[in-house]
């Protein structure tokens, strides 16, 4: 028995119930904070969301495609958003991909030309005017994302950035057509609000008249139209 040497150990064991109570209370407080932030973010971004949804729907209806990307946890949230567009429960699937899906491409670009270009180079290879680029980030300033937006903007893509804090470089960049900023200092709370915003964006896209035509097959789609033809048709 070593209790006489470490009397505090027993006391701490008895503290287990207190710890569990503290953890549960902390979870509820953080969830409430997340909920409040998600509500205030949706309200603050309502106009931008409507604008982005209208343009995205117009592009999807004209054969445009969506490319999503991000770093770390945000890359997984961007992939979830691409998955939601591409295989949505109860809606028409739309062409959407995550640019982090292929490890061979990602590591080839990272190794050969530098990590900053892992997304920009993929857009050069795959994207055309009439497509859409969505990047999710908490800082709004990651070099690989701003490089990709520069490329996307130059190629006539519609660019949508998700950012946190004060919006970072996304908020002021001429390469970002619509920036959703989640005004928080917490990476976790920012990502939770961005996920909900992404879901609402997807919903709003499908509520656009252009999408309803696509769903019923009455819209003239031009999936193989040349970039020039499509950009002329849209601008």
């Amino acid at each position, binding site marked *: 028995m070593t209790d006489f040497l470490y009397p505090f150990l027993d006391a701490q064991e008895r503290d287990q119930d207190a710890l569990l109570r*503290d*953890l*549960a209370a902390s*979870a509820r407080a953080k*969830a409430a904070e*997340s909920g409040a932030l998600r509500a205030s973010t949706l309200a603050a971004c309502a106009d931008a969301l409507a604008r982005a949804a209208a343009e995205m729907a117009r592009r999807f209806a004209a054969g445009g495609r969506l490319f999503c990307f991000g770093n770390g946890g945000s*890359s997984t949230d961007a*992939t979830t958003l691409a998955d939601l567009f591409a295989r949505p429960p109860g809606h028409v699937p739309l062409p959407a991909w995550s640019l982090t899906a292929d490890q061979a491409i990602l590591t080839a670009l990272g190794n050969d030309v530098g990590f900053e270009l892992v997304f920009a180079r993929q857009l050069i290879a795959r994207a055309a005017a009439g497509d859409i680029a969505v990047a999710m980030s908490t800082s709004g300033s990651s070099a690989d994302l701003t490089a990709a937006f520069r490329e996307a903007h130059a190629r006539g893509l519609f660019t949508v950035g998700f950012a946190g804090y004060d919006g970072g470089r996304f908020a002021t960049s001429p390469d970002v057509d619509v920036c959703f900023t989640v005004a928080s200092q917490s990476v976790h709370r920012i990502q939770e609000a961005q996920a909900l915003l992404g879901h609402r964006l997807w919903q709003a896209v499908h509520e656009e008249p252009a999408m309803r035509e696509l769903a019923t097959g009455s819209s003239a789609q031009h999936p193989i139209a040349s970039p020039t033809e499509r950009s002329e048709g849209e601008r």
Partner: protein
Amino acid sequence: MTVGTLDQELAADLAAASLVLARRFAAGATLWCLAPSWEPHAQHVAVEFVHPVIVGKKALPAVALTGPDLVAAGRVSVRAGDVVLAVAGADDPQVRDVLRRAPAWGATTLWIGSGGRPPPGAADHVLWLDDPDPALPATGGFVLLYHLLWELTHVCFEHPGLLTEQAPGSVCITCSDEGRLGEVVAPGRVRTAGGVEDVSTLLVDPVAPGDLVLVHAGTAITRVDP
């Protein structure tokens, strides 16, 4: 999920799951994550623990299990004492199969999901959002749950005196053995939480590799069917 609410029961479940996860990590566990229908969630959980967003927090071993056969991936990856976390609906066949085998691999199980709930006992800790919306996995509801799991687990690390594992459960009073889940590896060889052991399968023969049995006192006393 109603924005901004976490009911008392779910908060208590999260707290209990976090303490168990912290204890397992403290004892050397790896966290294995799977989310067959929404794979990015498994990767998000893994990156959360491996590369914490808060500087100074300990990096912990967590891995996303992906690919066509998650049972095979889990079987070869999971070691006794590890934790398996699934993010999936209650009807996901691969997740159900992995989680019912996990006790034979010696793993603790956590299940995050939404919609209809899995049957009682399907996982050690079930963290559930009852909203039936099939698009709920893309609303951030799960992200909130595993963010909280990460945050609370790290709070537990601030209480090292509470990180020791608790005593094992009750045992048979005649032979001091438990009824333990085992997965047949080969004839007469069964994998349980204690490792691969010699077990008589006379009472349940014929058995094939992968079959689940209940082991008591060196004997497989019954089959455990899905």
